[in-house]
């Protein structure tokens, strides 16, 4: 490195020539470390995928740092190291999710056939399909949504538009508390409530819906509140200036403007409760027939079905386990579908507030 002639401090290039790592450097380092570690593990006979991944991550972080430090400069090397670390952390967070999806798909797909989706169970021996569970899930979730959505949205409207002072603070506090209620407690609440009025031992589809709505309402309130707050105040003022009463402003201006966000919030809340098992175990019971009336008798649903098929398999154990996995896969599919629908609705109805 030649010293510059003038007095101003030079922009010093890297010690070994001021270079830049090639574009393929990060990928090359990762590939290289994986191969290196794999070879090492195989040679010492301690190969395992988990060990490979962890060791390869460490090795590649080290390698990229040293290589970059040598070729480029210290700041860039540190930059690359942190980039690797962040990506590794992200991958680590993703691993359980992907592993879960993979596992459920692997075990559930074999059992997922037309019979499963449309047939009802066949007798005590077991077999048949899960149509009763699917129908039950849809009915129970539907009724829970029918209860929670009006209550939740109206409460959110109160909190954003009308509430003030102590009552509002108290309500917000209790809503926050409600978001943390364990699901079994919600189930027991519904159980106790109906036991008081209809005698103990009663099992109804609507009891499950009540339990689920206890869990769903705070989520709907929270997300609706956020969405309503985002509606700019200028729109409300424009409406007031035209001589529109407050309630009409809310119904005709604020709610339509917030519509997409409200629907998304509801969909997310539904996706959250659709797989709850504990409250449904104590409220809706376990039954083998298709029941579409929430006010009459037990109703099966996918979450409880998966549990019961696993706990008390029929004569053919494997078939029962297959069905349990298939039920789990169906639940995941329903949640994904709901999220997708929520996104589509949001995109379609979102209003550009300019």
């Amino acid at each position: 490195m030649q010293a510059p002639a003038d007095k101003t401090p030079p922009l010093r290039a890297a010690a070994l020539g001021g270079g830049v790592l090639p574009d393929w450097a990060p990928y090359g380092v990762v590939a290289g470390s994986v191969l290196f570690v794999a070879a090492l593990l195989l040679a010492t006979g301690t190969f395992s995928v988990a060990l490979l991944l962890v060791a390869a991550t460490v090795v590649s972080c080290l390698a990229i740092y040293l290589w970059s430090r040598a070729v480029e400069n210290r700041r860039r090397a540190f930059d690359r190291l942190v980039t690797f670390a962040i990506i590794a952390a992200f991958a680590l967070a993703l691993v359980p999710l992907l592993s879960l999806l993979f596992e459920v798909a692997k075990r559930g797909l074999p059992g997922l056939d037309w019979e499963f989706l449309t047939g009802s169970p066949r007798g005590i021996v077991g077999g048949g399909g899960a149509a009763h569970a699917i129908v039950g899930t849809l009915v129970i979730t539907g009724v829970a949504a029918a209860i929670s959505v009006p209550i939740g949205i109206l409460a959110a409207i109160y909190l954003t538009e009308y509430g003030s002072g102590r009552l509002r603070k108290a309500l917000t506090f209790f809503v926050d508390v409600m978001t943390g209620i364990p699901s079994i407690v919600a189930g027991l609440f519904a159980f106790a409530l109906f036991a008081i009025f209809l005698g103990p031992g009663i099992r109804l589809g609507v009891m499950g819906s009540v339990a689920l709505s206890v869990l769903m309402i705070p989520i709907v309130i929270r997300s609706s509140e956020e969405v309503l707050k985002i509606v700019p105040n200028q729109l409300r003022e424009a409406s007031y200036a035209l001589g529109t009463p407050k309630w009409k402003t809310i119904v005709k201006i604020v709610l339509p403007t917030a519509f997409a966000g409200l629907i998304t919030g509801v969909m997310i809340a539904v996706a959250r409760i659709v797989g709850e098992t504990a409250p449904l175990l104590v409220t809706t019971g376990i039954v083998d027939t298709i029941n579409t009336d929430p006010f009459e008798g037990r109703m099966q649903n996918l979450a409880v079905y998966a549990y019961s098929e696993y706990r008390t398999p029929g004569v053919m154990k494997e078939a029962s386990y297959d069905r349990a996995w298939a039920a789990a896969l169906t639940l995941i599919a329903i949640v994904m579908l709901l999220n997708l629908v929520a996104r589509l609705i949001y995109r379609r109805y979102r209003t550009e507030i300019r």
Partner: protein
Amino acid sequence: MQGAAGTTGAEAEMARAEVREPAPQAMPEAAPKAATRRRAKTIETRDVNLYYGDFHAVENATVTIEPNKVTALIGSSGCGKTTFLRALNRMHELTPGARVEGGITLDGQDIYAPGIDPVQVRRLVGMVFQAPNPFPTMSVYENVVAGLTLNAGRVKKSKKDEVVERSLRGAHLWNEVKDRLDRPGSGLSGGQQQRLCIARAIAVEPEVLLMDEPCSALDPVATLAIEDLIRELKNRFTIVIVTHNMQQAARASDVTAFFNLEETGQPGRLVEIGPTETIFTSPTEKATEDYVSGRFG
């Protein structure tokens, strides 16, 4: 009035096709519609004091807003012009903690009397805001008739069509949007959006039109269009406009009221009110003279 205006309006429109839309010299051809000079209402305020909680924002404002004239409220930032304006249509009280003391009357009737419904007051005293705020979920057509549909419920389509055309023509926006009435209101340019808001405000035929710095978010061309529009609208309404721009006040108004703030923390006061000519050429108060000649503000 509407039947005749329909045919002559179409002819006038074709005659005006080459003329720049907001040009005032187009007025004589459009005369049959605008000729009827409707006597709008007077607003009088007496010793009005406005508060935000404990903060005294405006002190003892006594003003007469004359009918069918444009009154401009000028003054430096924070002196209470917008607060005063919002008190005139009972929007000031919407801010939590805000209150109004003193008397404000509309053609002699006290708008703050105990039995008076603020919603009714706001139907008589309309407002246009600083930043254009068309309703984003509604089309241009629906925006213009929003004042009607939100309040009157079912309105016949023919009546709505007529109101839309009349208001958009009145706001000098008809030619630009007549082919896109069903498109969202937010798709227009800033100047067009502001004219849309003006059309929306005049569609309900208020007695008084309040405008809070209507041109501050607009470019000079759009500003000129709005000022021409204001000059034309005063035949039908009483107009009060708050503006930071003294040249605009000098151009567009008949009466000017100068508000001033002694120092921050003090309430704003009405210093002087009078015909625009007088205020700008030979004001009585020294503070007014200092402000209009640019020595502060």
